[in-house]
């Protein structure tokens, strides 16, 4: 049943998404692909839309995916599920003990968990960039156009940072990518 799947899937995201929105994206991708809710392409579009709209990115993705699968009730359910674990954990910490997280045992577990999350985020990034250029690894076809666009976008991202010593806003990179996509497609 789709409602139960949305609830369970997004509770899993809510319980295990350490490291903010980017830490959550691999997990959301895994949940969405394993339930077969959306194709990989749509998911990438949705990440871009969530990134470019106001509000918490993880919440945006939950609302979107819930709505695409089961309308308004699905959107409400998925959003609640992704918010609830964080809400309850914070209530627990502020009402019981704020020292809880500072105990050496919790710190030791987090010390192992955090680098793992970073590794997963890196693997997802590498995987998505590769898929953008060669398509599915099962039947790779190198797209020169996609490779060139990826290089130009990387040059914009890192060139801006190198020149201004500031980070380029993700929304600006997405806007640049949209223009490049239109130029390449026309």
């Amino acid at each position, binding site marked *: 049943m789709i409602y139960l799947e949305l609830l369970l899937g997004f509770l899993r995201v809510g319980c295990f998404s350490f490291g903010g929105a980017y830490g959550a994206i691999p997990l959301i991708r895994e949940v969405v692909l394993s339930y077969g809710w959306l194709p990989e392409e749509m998911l990438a579009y949705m990440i871009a839309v969530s990134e470019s709209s106001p509000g918490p990115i993880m919440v945006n993705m939950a609302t979107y995916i819930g709505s695409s699968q089961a309308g308004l009730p699905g959107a409400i359910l998925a959003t609640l599920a992704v918010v609830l674990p964080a809400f309850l954990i914070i209530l627990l910490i502020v009402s019981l003990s704020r020292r809880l997280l*500072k105990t050496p045992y919790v710190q030791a577990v987090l010390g192992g968990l955090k680098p793992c999350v970073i590794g997963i985020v890196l693997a997802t990034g590498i995987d998505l960039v590769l898929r953008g250029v060669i398509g599915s690894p099962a039947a790779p076809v190198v797209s020169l156009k996609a490779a060139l666009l990826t290089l130009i976008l990387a040059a914009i991202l890192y060139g801006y940072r190198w020149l201004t010593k500031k980070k380029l806003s993700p929304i600006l990179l997405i806007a640049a990518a949209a223009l490049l*996509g239109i130029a390449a*497609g026309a």
Partner: protein
Amino acid sequence: MPILLELFLTFAKIGLFTFGGGYAMISLIEDVCVDRRGWITHDEMMDITVIAESTPGPIAINCATFVGYRRGGVLGAVLATFGVVLPSFVIIFLIAQVLDNFLAIPLIAHAFGGIKLAVGLLILDAGLNMMRKMKKKLLPRLILLLSCAAMLAVNLFAWNFSSVTLMLAAGAVGLVCFLAGGEGRRGGGEGR
């Protein structure tokens, strides 16, 4: 204005006007809740930032729940959290109704063809930034390398394996190494 209504409206405004997710929100929350309204102290804000980074879920939700509870108990926490979620819920729900039709327009489809490539780069870049801020010690580096390699293999060969299993294993490794190293006696085992 009653505090509960004020909490709801303040966080709804924060939810409506911050782009870029949780980290962008932290500075706005600090500006409003610490500097302007004095709802929480600067130290509490630092505290909540650390807590948010060590607990799962959206960072904005962590902050809203914390501030809401401080000022208005459980009901305050509910209203602040509801406030921060509501604007983007409405906006995204409306976008979701039209995106499929949008994608049928060739121009928009081409644009998203480019956007798809940018999303991969943004995720890769976020991972690299997280890596740069990580503690430069052997164990975290090893865990990072192995996790990355494992997930790449999972993606490449389309294995049926959840990253949650990997995260739980990494947490267990952290705990076991800590217990075996007896770092507890040195008090926390933080730093290099």
